[in-house]
Every structure is written in C-alpha cells, then in structure tokens.
C-alpha cells in the first residue's frame, strides 16, 4: 500500500471529518487518497492560510480536522496560527512536508528548513516527526490526543524517511 493511502487510513482511523491543504510533491499522494476517502471531506484550498482557516472552523465546531501543507506555506500562516489557532486554543493537527533537510537537495527549500521549527517553537506549537511506521504506532491519533489535551494545534512533520527512498 502506498504512503498516501496509509496516511489516509490513519487519518480516517483517527476519526477526522474535515481535511484541507495545499499540495507539494511529497503531499500530493496523500491528498489524492484523502480526496477519495468516504468518511471525511477534503476541501482543497488555493493558499495555506485558507486551508488552515477551514480546519480551524471545523475544529471550532467540534470535529477533528487535519491540514496539509509544505513548510513554506506553513510559514505564511503565522498570524493565523497566533491569533486564532493558539489564542483560541484550537486542537487541529497540521501535517507539514518539512522540506530542505539532508538529502532534499533543492536550493529553494534550504532556508525554509532553517526557519520552520524555530517558528513553531516561537508559537509554542508542539511538533513531532512522523516515523515510517506512523500507522502502526497510531501517531495521528496520538497527535489529536495531544492537541485536545493541550487545547492547541500540533504539527506532525513529514520527512523523506516517512515517504521512502527516492522521493
């Protein structure tokens, strides 16, 4: 089973009802599977802040929501994360393609990687790297438990190791 379907299965298992996002190369297979999923709605967004707003709205009305974006897009959402996500304490889970680390040799990604985790730390948003066996470990559900316990967003970072060699 490909990683996109595995991730979708894990998201459905976590009882997520609304998902939104903006694709990048790494996230596209996940978004493709989410779009076909029966137990949730995937709402595509034109920019990351809209995707985040959709997920925050869903979570503020009591359902689990996941938001998918690349780290560059996540960096664009600082105001929204601060004034709504953190200020209101909204328990959503972000799934972020953390581009620009060792082996991800595209010059456009390099500085995003330097900025992204300190950015999450500045907002006091917990972040965890998914492991390749994320589904066996039930990491999606655990992230929601953390978000709901702390009443704040939690970020799950997707790295090359999650997606497999050659991506």
């Amino acid at each position, binding site marked *: 089973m490909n990683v996109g379907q595995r991730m979708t299965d894990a998201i459905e298992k976590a009882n997520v*009802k*609304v998902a*939104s996002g903006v694709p990048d190369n790494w996230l596209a297979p996940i978004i493709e599977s989410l779009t076909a999923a029966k137990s949730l*709605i995937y*709402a*595509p*967004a*034109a*920019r990351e*802040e*809209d*995707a*985040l*707003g*959709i*997920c*925050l*709205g*869903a*979570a*503020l*009305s*009591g*359902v689990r*929501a996941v938001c998918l974006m690349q780290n560059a897009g996540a960096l664009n959402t600082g*105001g*929204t994360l*601060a*004034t*709504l996500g953190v*200020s*209101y*304490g*909204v328990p959503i889970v972000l799934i972020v393609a953390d581009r620009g680390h060792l082996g991800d040799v595209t010059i456009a990604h390099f500085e995003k990687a330097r900025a992204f985790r300190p950015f999450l730390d500045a907002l006091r948003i917990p972040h965890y790297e998914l492991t390749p066996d994320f589904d066996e470990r039930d990491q999606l559900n655990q992230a929601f438990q953390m978000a709901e316990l702390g*009443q704040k967003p939690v970020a799950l970072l997707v790295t090359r190791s999650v997606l497999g060699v050659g991506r």
Partner: protein
Amino acid sequence: MMIEREQAFNALAEQITDELVVTGIASQMASWYKAKHRPENLYLRGPMGLSLAVGLGVALAHPERKVVVIEGDGSVLMGLTSLVAVAHCQPKNLMIVCMDNGIYEEGGKGATVNAGRTDFVKTVQGVGIMLARTASDLSGLREAIKECLTKAECSFLHVRIGPRVGPIHPTKLRSFEMKYQFLNALKGINQSK
C-alpha cells in the same frame, strides 16, 4: 444609496433563528454582538480576512445547519482566495454577508483598495458562487436575506452600508470563552443551567 450600519445588522438579526453565525473581526463582531448576541455565534478576533474560510470549515463540519458568515469589504478582499475554496465545495448551507462601507473602519478609516469600483457580485459569480445579490436599501436587503437564508444553495450577499456612527461596542468575552460558548451551543448544552 446605502443602508445605515445598525439597520443592516438589525435586518439580518430579525431573520436569524437557529443559524450558526461566524463574524469577522472588529466592527463586524461588535455590530453583530450588539444586534444579536447568542451562543450560536462564533466571534473571530483574528486574523483579518479569514472568516470566509473558517465559515466554510463550520459549514463542512455541520451540513445539517445553515451557517452565516458576516464580514466586511476589506476582509473579503483580503480573503478573496477563500471564495475559490467555497466555490469548489459549493456548501448548500453557507451564506456569506459582505458589509461594505468602503473603508477600513477600525484600521484608520482609509478607503479600502479599489473602493467603489470592485463589483463584488461579478467577482463572486466569476469564481462560481452563482447566488450572489447586492442590496443598498432596506427592503431590498430584507428580501435578499430571506432568499439567501431559505435557498439550499451557497450564497453571497453584498450590502452597501454607511460608516459606523458612535463608539464601537466591543465584546468583553475572552477568546477561550468565545470558543466554548460556540462549542457548547453546538452540543446543545444550555449554559444558563
């Protein structure tokens, strides 16, 4: 021709019953709080421009409830890309109200970008939200509100209003209170008990 701000909000309040309402920041939140404060309101303190996306999220999470987003012209312009997401999803239970006073009411009162020249109805229909109306007098507004509330179709209502008269009436609710008030209303919890 335009409608006095308070009259426009009161006209909306007259027809709102069990709908969920999401308000944009500052003036929209304050005016709606004064017109019809109730637990089924989700007030946004920030960020500017995001209430359309947030309202879409509420509408997708609760297809059984009508959701009304009240936003200003400056914020609608800031969140134009949200309209594309709304158009893609075509939620039958979402109504967007754009209160257009042509200025950044709480942002120095300067003119909004391209004020008076942007055709909101054409813009909205251009991205695929076809039930789009504009109102600049009270009777027209009441008819348009009724149409948008009763039709099972995603809708956008542009309302030409005047600037705020008198001081703003800020809500004293804190952000967490706003969240739990709305969540409890959705769960059917009577907070007076």
